[in-house]
């Protein structure tokens, strides 16, 4: 906590650290390939071009890549022990390729291969349709913390980009929210690119709370184009960009008992669980509850207003 640096102000010559989290859930990528033609392999090609573009923007830009797989999240780049120096891949120096690009590309592809070859426990995770996004986010934050500690002058400006395909997993709600709040505190924007499927409410909140960008990919063939235009600009450049109309973020709550959307709820004062009806005992923490004394005059006033509203036929409408 002592080394909270000023991450809010950005200068033009600041270096940028991009932590890319790729959701590699194989089931959903297969589904995506079938329905839209964008497979993981194809997407990875686009992403590598995007990473190279990021590195090419400034000589001291940095990148880290984390895979959020079904049962594990793992660093793809950088890894502390770069292995496989003398393996099948050609060690010939490609004179047409900037060496740094090659190192990144080879490591990301190589480690991704390892990840997919090592499918041991596909059925252990309670919610197979999702991926370990909370773990990947926590690792990303730890990595950023390490880099920012080492960087004494506050020259490096970090940001996170999540390539998401899996739906939200309710098991991860608390841990994802914890990550979001720490990112917000440290001034790290979380960008989210939703490649396939429905909008994710959790990640949409992540982008909104941390001041990142959220994009739902409409045209999968143009993946690279969207990446380049929406997510490549660094934090300094973003000050001068105008995004098309901001989307509404859904912050409404759902009750713990029926997962029903509610606008007025009963909250347990001990564990903050939300219920849609008053109960005697909290079903989460098992404490006996009494209904808090309702502010009488407030309630009367409201009932009065409601009656008035009804009488007037509610022409005022209220909300949009």
């Amino acid at each position: 906590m002592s080394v909270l640096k000023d991450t809010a102000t950005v200068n033009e010559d600041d270096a940028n650290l991009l932590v890319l989290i790729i959701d590699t859930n194989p089931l959903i990528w297969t589904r995506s390939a079938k329905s839209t033609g964008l497979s993981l392999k194809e997407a990875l090609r686009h992403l590598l071009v995007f990473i190279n573009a990021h590195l090419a923007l400034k000589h001291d830009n940095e990148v880290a890549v984390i895979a959020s797989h079904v049962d594990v999240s793992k660093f793809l780049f950088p890894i502390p022990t770069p292995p496989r120096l003398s393996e099948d891949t050609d060690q010939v120096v490609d004179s047409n390729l900037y060496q740094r690009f090659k190192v990144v590309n080879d490591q990301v592809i190589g480690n991704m291969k390892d990840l997919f070859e090592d499918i041991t426990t596909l059925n252990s995770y309670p919610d197979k349709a999702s991926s370990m996004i909370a773990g990947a986010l926590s690792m990303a934050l730890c990595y950023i913390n390490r880099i920012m500690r080492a960087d004494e002058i506050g020259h490096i400006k970090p940001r996170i980009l999540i390539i998401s395909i899996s739906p939200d997993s309710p098991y991860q709600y608390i841990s994802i929210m914890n990550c979001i709040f720490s990112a917000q505190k440290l001034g790290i924007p979380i960008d989210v690119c939703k490649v396939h499927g429905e909008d994710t409410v959790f990640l949409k909140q992540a982008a909104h709370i941390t001041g990142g960008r959220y994009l739902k990919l409409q045209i999968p063939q143009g993946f690279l184009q969207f990446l380049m235009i929406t997510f490549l600009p660094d934090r300094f450049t973003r000050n001068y960009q105008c995004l098309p109309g901001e989307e509404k973020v859904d912050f409404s709550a759902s009750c713990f008992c029926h997962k029903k959307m509610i606008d007025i709820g009963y909250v347990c004062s001990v564990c903050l669980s939300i219920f849609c009806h008053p109960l005697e005992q909290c079903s989460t923490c098992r404490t006996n509850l009494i209904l808090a004394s309702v502010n009488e005059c407030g309630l009367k006033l409201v009932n009065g207003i409601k009656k008035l509203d009804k009488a007037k036929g509610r022409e005022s409408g209220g909300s949009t």
Partner: protein
Amino acid sequence: MSKQHKQAEEYIDIDDEIQTTAQQTGYAWEEEYKRSWDVLQEDEDGSLKRTVENLQHRMKRKKLFRDTSTIRRGIIRHIFLIIDLSEAMMEKDLRPSRLELTLSYAEQFILEYFDQNPISQLGIIVTRGGIAEKLTDLTGNPMDNIRVLKNKKNTDTDGEPSLQNSLEMARSTLIHVPAHGSREILIIMGSLTTCDPGDIYDTIDSLVKENIRVSVVGLAAEVQICKHMCKKTKGIYGVVLNEVHFKDLLFEIIPPPPVSVAQSKAELVIMGFPSSVTDSMPSLCACHSKPTTNGYICARCNSKICDLPTDCPVCELTLVSSPHLARSYHHLFPIDNFVEVPWNSAFTTHCFSCQMPFPNATTSLLGTRVVTETSGRYKCNKCNQHFCIDCDVFVHEVIHNCPGCLATTLSIK
């Protein structure tokens, strides 16, 4: 005149009090004299680097041993911050001055408090010239509090503080707080004396009776009455040693305090989760009566308000959004402390979460075993992954997630 005289008699003479309590507790200046340089020892290469590293590790770890048991905590808090604005605050023993440092820390405290306790409330009382003055009532909005502190007129210093007057003022508001919320008072006290109209012990007794917890941060020296009061009301009492220590003491108040099951009543609180609106035409908000286009609509009475969380100004419904509740969850579900890994099981090469290489147990140039006491690895007992010291601190203080538990499934290994 006679009243003035009476007040003068009520001044607390610290010298007297110290003599009666010193034997039992012991003060810092009475402790055995420690020579800090005796702790340092050179390693076989004649360098101090290792020892210094070890000391740093220990310092970092010391902060970490926190209570991780899932006790009930008062998540919904009500706290009054009482700031002493007596002439003693103009002393320059803390840089730039006691007052300026207090104001800047108070601002940080308020922001951090609302960050960690999003559905809680805070009010500010200042005391100077023998009277207490309420700057803000209990409010859920950090900006309201910070704005009054920024106003120079509110922070002029004058005369003596009055502990009793300010406590009574805070108490009169706190007794109306609903039973599920905590009642707390935090005092930043620069003066060694107080100017009270009556018997302060009566006030302390009533504070105890009303379940109000009083914590004091003293800027000068230990004052017996403060110590007594904090002990009685189960608060924390600390006297600052230097600028950094001041902040540490203040920020100790920020995590929600544990509450005994008997003391607090568990209640079901009605809360509204308002929807946000963006109108094309500005309309008046209910909180400031200013025309705005963006806002939230109270779920019960349809009034428009600017910001969350707040109490609806019309129907007094507590209005929050679901992320506000989520912000408090980490207090309720803390993660366990990591344990130090001994050298004989330190086989990992790098930190699980930040990929930082660990020091390895190889022998040094002279062929002797490396003397570092710690292996630099800390293990989560749930997922058995190893972390570096920086991640250990970061995980427990900032993220509140174990990356190992979240990034691996238990069946792996």
